[in-house]
């Protein structure tokens, strides 16, 4: 199994998800205001996004007699 995953293809999906989730994120921030966790809720999105961006270059190559797995993020 050889799976090269181009991150470029995920950008439109991420954009659509971002637009869809924006109201939920705003509501979550408002809910967390009394608990003092507003900043945490705001930071979570960009940090998750940076994790996604950092996936570029990740390569997993496992080869055994029965199966071969090759996943690379390009």
């Amino acid at each position, binding site marked *: 199994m050889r799976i090269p995953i181009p991150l470029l293809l995920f950008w439109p999906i991420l954009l659509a998800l971002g637009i869809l989730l924006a109201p939920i994120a705003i509501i979550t921030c408002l809910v967390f205001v009394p608990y003092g966790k507003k900043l945490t809720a705001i*930071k979570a999105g960009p940090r998750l996004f940076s994790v996604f961006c950092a*996936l570029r270059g990740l390569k997993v*190559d496992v080869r*055994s*007699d029965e199966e071969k797995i090759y996943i690379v993020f390009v």
Partner: protein
Amino acid sequence: MNEERTKILEMLAQGKITVADAERLMEAMGNTKSSAQSTEEPTRQISNNSKPKFMRIEVDEGPDGDRVNIRVPLQLLRAGVKFAGLIPEVARDKVNKSLEEKGINFDIANLKPDSLEDLVSSLGDLSLDVDGKDEKVRIYCE
């Protein structure tokens, strides 16, 4: 004292050159040395600046066994640690407990983005080779 300097002093002693000539020659020698040093320094700086970008984990269990080759971008490590900073305290304690159960006595709260840079830069020197009977494990940064 190097050879050229000795030669100049010998010539001065033999009266072949004057003190002024010797001084000029010494100065010229000093300039060529400093220019040679200045040309060496940038190359050394470049080699120091070339930070590792990936961590490689290779496991080879011999001709009949499995082969694992994983390349992890160090940027992912950085991003992961920054993301882990958002973990709530309750969940952090649970993670620490799970780590302790696995024999890893480490508090993830101590892993901060500021100290991470030092860790990542020192990872460049990391090279771990384990040669077993049938399997080889190699961990290094590139």
